[in-house]
């Protein structure tokens, strides 16, 4: 939501009308979003990357748009489509297959495609204070302004906000060490301790084929 809010700020400051935010997770908003799609000029669909693709809830919304394919085929109009995909992984590459799906979705609906904002490191963003993300907020405001003015995102700005596409092997070697350090796991470990679940952090509750039931993977730090 923080990222969408900054996009909306950029949109409004560039002269766009106040956007109507709808949360698909709220049942009433889900139905309103399907109806709003038909009358909107521009739709920005924001989502986290869930198991390497769109969340099931977002796919349910896309399924509900199926009648709009026929509308477009009959010469009707569908809105400009823009997307935001936020991932917990640091590299942008994880979101690229979904980006391809989203571009095809716009074509399927006969919608002008404004582009997909891909941004990694989402969990770190959630845990950091807002003030430390000023550069990202400025990038999002710029993209929001572009969408309001041009009905599409600028390619250089999309590339800049995506950040690291893929780490080099050298960086990867450093990361493989860093990921074993307690500091890298601190945000999760803090929550585990707060919830009294620290002792069960390596729990493996389901019977695992070919191994002892519940056999966990050993902690490499031990």
């Amino acid at each position, binding site marked *: 939501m923080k990222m969408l809010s900054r996009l909306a700020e950029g949109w409004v400051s560039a002269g766009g009308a106040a956007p109507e935010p709808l949360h698909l997770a709220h049942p009433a908003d889900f139905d309103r979003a399907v109806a709003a799609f038909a009358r909107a000029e521009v739709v920005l669909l924001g989502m986290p990357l*869930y198991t*390497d693709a769109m*969340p099931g809830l977002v*796919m349910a919304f896309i399924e509900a748009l199926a009648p709009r394919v026929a509308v477009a085929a009959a010469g009707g109009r569908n809105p400009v489509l823009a997307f935001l995909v936020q991932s917990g992984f640091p590299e942008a590459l994880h979101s690229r297959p979904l980006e*391809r799906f989203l571009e095809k979705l716009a074509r399927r609906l006969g919608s002008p495609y404004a582009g997909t904002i891909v941004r990694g490191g989402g969990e770190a963003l959630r845990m950091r204070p807002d003030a430390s993300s000023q550069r990202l907020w400025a990038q999002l405001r710029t993209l929001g302004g572009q969408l309001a003015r041009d009905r599409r995102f600028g390619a250089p700005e999309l590339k800049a906000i995506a950040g690291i596409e893929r780490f080099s092997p050298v960086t990867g070697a450093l990361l*493989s060490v860093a990921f074993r350090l307690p500091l890298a796991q601190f945000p999760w470990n803090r929550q585990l301790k707060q919830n009294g*679940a620290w002792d*069960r952090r390596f729990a493996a509750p*389901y019977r695992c084929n070919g*191994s002892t039931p519940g056999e966990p993977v050993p902690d490499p730090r031990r």
Partner: protein
Amino acid sequence: MRITILNGEPDPGSSFHRYVHELAVGLADPGHRVLTLDLGGLDLKGCSGCFGCWVKTPGRCVKGDDSGRVCAAVMEADLLVAASRVTMGFTSSRLKRAADQMIPLVHPYLEWEGGEVHHRPRYSNYPGFALVLGPGSGADAEDLEISAGLWMRLARNLKFRPVLTAVADRSAVEVALAILAAA
């Protein structure tokens, strides 16, 4: 071999639903044990990104719905088969909802694996993974390719060993034999 089929077809009266059950018969025929979960009949509340399965009840979803049954069936299997028609360019939202609730099968902790950052495994063994795509109305070759690509990314991140992607444009028995040959 133990085989779990996740049937993502929500309409029990559809021809694809029947196809999936014929597939189950085909997979079981050579003496394998097959469990078919019709996801349309399960209580799957969906993932809301609360991460409770990582930081409150490690390894289990906190929602107390049927996602625990899905995860148990996945982990008990030697081979996991996900089956769905492709509609609006991807597999059903029902199947994706079930997949979203599989994140307790891995850790929140990250690792460097195969040149990319991924989650660390929670288990020492994971099943092989086959995908069966039903070419729904309006689905073209690009849709099938995109769907397969997304699911193979998912399989990699959830530590499933990719086995095969098959299109249900031939008999269920033929697809079953192809899956077993590749597994």
